[in-house]
């Protein structure tokens, strides 16, 4: 069994109360969530730069922090934790060369210079060792910062929006570096971002953070296919959340009542009358060509609406459709589809919702406090987003 970092802390931070609970093994855990959710503060608590009000942080048998009733309080100073921290603003010492920056944690060791140089070469920066930080580009500075963090031989490596200010091309290369490093040294890595593309590019597991709490944690794919609740949907920028009631459950399907509209969904283990939150996968909604027969669509959910907005994308085009009852539905289709179908705003359209496109995520009792429609909410970077 590899190393294991356990975090269970509470901290009041003005209007926000941080209540973080998770554990990380030798893997890359992405902390994803909107700004102000407490991600940075969590990293600071792990690194020893911030002291929680209570709780416990432990790496295997080493207590980093403990403040629990009846137990001796522990607060290991940051310098003794061997937790590397890579900052968004790089935080290189501006008065030292790249080499001296990397050698900084090795001070007093005889082979400091050689080891620092080896680390710089590992980050493909050997030829820039004598440069001052301001003579390096952003990507180069961040690689120096990573080399410097590695020089301290950390057991845990924290990335705080570390690549957010960099170009996509450079970010992709650094992500590849990071994955290789993690695998090579079996590091515990926590990577904070508010960019979903970055989360997919580096993460093994994803923790969705909001208002100081972990809403859901799991394998990246699992979190996306089974969001735990409406808040996670919102944070992940998944549109088309609906609140519905179970009308009838049979072996092959469930009938849902969505504000008076009946939808067939996959079978569910819930009694009739149960309130549920679900979402309609935008990629699974089909448009019906007005001049083609409908018989292929029999047994599917067929609804009518009017195009509100059409927005082309790089891979997927997005379409927003208003239903007769005022609900809005988002559709994403490949750029190559419906090329012969004119879809200016105002066009009446018929939508087909295969029953598999309706994903029930949770009984609604658990998410009652969150009743605001999701369509108007801001979505995090990287997710398709509609005008408002």
């Amino acid at each position, binding site marked *: 069994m590899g190393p294991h970092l356990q975090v269970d802390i509470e901290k009041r931070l003005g209007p926000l109360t941080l209540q973080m609970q998770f554990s990380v093994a030798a893997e890359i855990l992405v902390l994803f969530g909107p700004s102000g959710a407490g991600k940075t503060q969590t990293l600071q608590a792990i*690194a020893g730069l911030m002291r929680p009000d209570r709780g416990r942080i432990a790496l295997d048998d080493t207590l980093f922090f403990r403040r629990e009733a009846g137990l001796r309080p522990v607060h290991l100073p940051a310098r003794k934790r061997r937790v590397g921290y890579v*900052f968004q*603003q790089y935080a290189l010492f501006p008065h030292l060369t790249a080499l001296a920056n990397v050698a900084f944690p090795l001070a007093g060791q005889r082979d400091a210079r050689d080891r620092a140089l080896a680390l710089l070469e590992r980050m493909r920066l050997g030829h820039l060792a004598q440069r001052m930080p301001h*003579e390096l580009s952003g*990507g*180069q500075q961040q690689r120096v910062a990573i080399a410097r963090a590695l020089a301290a031989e950390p057991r845990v490596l924290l990335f705080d929006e570390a690549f957010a200010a960099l170009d996509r091309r450079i970010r992709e290369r650094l992500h590849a570096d990071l994955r290789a490093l993690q695998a090579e040294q079996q590091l515990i890595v926590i990577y904070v971002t508010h960019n979903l593309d970055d989360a997919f590019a580096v993460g093994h597991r994803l923790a969705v953070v909001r208002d100081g709490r972990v809403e859901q944690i799991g394998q990246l794919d699992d979190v996306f296919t089974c969001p735990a609740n409406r808040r996670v949907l919102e944070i992940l920028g998944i549109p088309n959340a609906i609140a519905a009631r179970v009308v009838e459950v049979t072996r092959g399907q469930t009938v849902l009542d969505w504000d008076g509209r009946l939808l067939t969904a996959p079978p569910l283990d819930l009694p009739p009358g149960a309130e549920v939150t679900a979402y309609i996968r935008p990629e699974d909604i089909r448009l019906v060509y007005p001049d083609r027969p409908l018989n292929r669509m029999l047994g599917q959910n067929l609804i009518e609406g009017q195009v509100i907005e059409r927005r082309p994308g790089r891979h997927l085009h997005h379409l927003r459709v208003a239903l007769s009852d005022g609900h809005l539905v988002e559709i994403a289709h490949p750029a190559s589809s419906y090329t012969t179908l004119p879809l200016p705003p105002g066009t009446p359209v018929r939508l087909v919702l295969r029953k598999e496109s309706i994903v029930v995520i949770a009984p609604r009792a658990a998410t009652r406090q969150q009743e605001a429609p999701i369509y108007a909410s801001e979505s995090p970077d990287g997710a398709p987003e509609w005008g408002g």
Partner: protein
Amino acid sequence: MNWPAFWLSLQVTTIATICITVIGLALALLLTRVRLPGQLVIETILLLPLVLPPSVIGYYLLLALGRGSPLVEWFNVRILFTWPAAVVAATVVGLPLMIQSSRAALANVDPVLENAARTLGSSEWRIFWQITLPLARRGILAGMILGSARALGEFGATLMVTGNIPGRTQTLPVAIYDAVQAQRYADAHLMVLVMTGLAFAGLLWVRWIEPPPQRYRPEGRSEEGASDG
């Protein structure tokens, strides 16, 4: 030219500069790192010598160094009307300039850099000497130069606490006053020129070490060249 006064001024200024640097840096550090109760009041008191009339400072120093003060009664330190009293006066008037300048410089050091050093295993002591101090060095040096220039020019309080004994406690500014009183203008001319030259050189030096307009940008250079990697 009154050479004894010149050498005494040099001696007094040198020792005062050392005191100003050590005490001023310590106070600046205290003011930037520790949240003290009544911080605003303490800061204001430390700045007072900048605006108080020299006679008021001299009066306080007479109280502090004269008979009946703890310094004399408890520690038997009797320096009134000797040249060390001039050092005390010079230190008191030079201190605010050092505190102001080095405090701004210390506060300007990005705390993220100090945090980075902490996660890299550094002790607070090492962070201060190898990160904070080198990054604040311009402001600290500027404070030292301004403080010592002010110490060199100290006149009023010095006159009151040293007693103006030629050859023993008479500093250059006091000697100039004496020369003018005695209508020895040739003497005064030369000494005034020396003082002006020293003050000018000091201020020029401060301007010289002021941070260049182009500041450290975390973004660094525009972008990576194709050659790298």
